[in-house]
C-alpha cells in the first residue's frame, strides 16, 4: 500500500501507523455512552471508510484518509488537523 502524505508525497505504508475510524471527538465530560460509542462501536463499512493514520516514521502528521476497505483504493487524504474532528466543547 502507498499513501500520499499531503506533506511528504507518496510513501510506502510501512512508514505509517493506523489508529482506526476517523470520528468526531466527544466532549471530555459527555459521559460514558458517548465515549463508549466513540471508542468501541464501529460502522465498519465494506467500502469507503474514513480513518486516521499517522505518518509516524516520516513527518509525524496525523492524516484523515478515505479508503475503500474492500479494494484498498485511496480516495482522499488530508491533514487531520484540518479534518474537523476536533473535540466538542465541554458542557461544564
Amino acid at each position, binding site marked *: 500500500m502507498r499513501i500520499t502524505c499531503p*506533506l*511528504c*508525497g507518496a*510513501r*510506502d505504508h*510501512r*512508514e505509517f501507523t493506523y489508529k482506526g475510524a476517523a470520528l468526531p471527538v466527544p466532549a471530555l465530560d459527555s459521559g460514558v455512552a458517548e465515549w463508549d460509542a466513540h471508542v468501541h462501536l464501529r460502522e465498519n463499512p465494506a467500502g469507503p471508510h474514513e480513518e486516521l493514520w499517522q*505518518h509516524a*516514521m*516520516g*513527518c*509525524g*502528521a496525523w492524516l484523515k484518509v478515505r479508503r475503500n476497505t474492500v479494494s484498498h483504493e485511496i480516495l482522499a487524504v488530508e*491533514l487531520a488537523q484540518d479534518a474537523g474532528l476536533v473535540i466538542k466543547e465541554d458542557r461544564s
Partner: protein
Amino acid sequence: MAETEMQLAAKSPCAGLLPLTIGDVTLTEDTPAAMTLIAPYKGQEKPLSDALNAAHGMGFPAPNRATGNAEARAIWFGRAQALLVGPVADPKLAAHAALTDLSDGWAVVRLEGAHAEEVMARLVPIDLRPQVFKRGHTARTELQHMMASITRIGPKALQIMVFRSFADTLVHDLKRAMEAVAARG
C-alpha cells in the same frame, strides 16, 4: 558548590565507528557546531522565515526541502518544523517559534560515492536517485527500522541523521549494505 574547574570531555555519536570506506562508498561522521529545532507558533511562519533570513541568511524551508548551504542549513524536519544545522540559533527567533537545542540529539553521517544511492536503496523505502532526489531535497523517512532524516548535500553525497542512541545500528546497517553493494562488483 564545585571546588574544581575542569572541562568534561565531549564525544561524538559515532566516535570510534567511523570513517569507513567500502568499495567506492565512504561513510563519515559530521559534527555540526549546533543543531536547533525551530517550530513556528501559529501564524508565525512568515515572520519566522523573515527573522531566519535576517539572522542566518536562509528562509524557512518548504516541506521536503533544505535551504542554506554547507555552513548553515535549514532542513525541513517534519510537520511544521525545521532543523537549523550549523550556527547557534539566534535567540530572537524564539519570538516566533519554539527553539529546542538538539545539538546532541542526532547522529549525523555523510554517505558519499558512486554507489551511494544503491547502498541507500537497500535501507530506505524512498527513491533517492539523483534525477528524483535532487540537491536541496530532504526527506523524513525510515532507514531500516529507524526514523531518519535524509538530505542530498552533493551530487553523490547524502546526509543521514538518526537519533543519537541509534548511531551504532546506523553504522551497522550502512556497513552491511555497503558490503553487499561492493560485493556485487
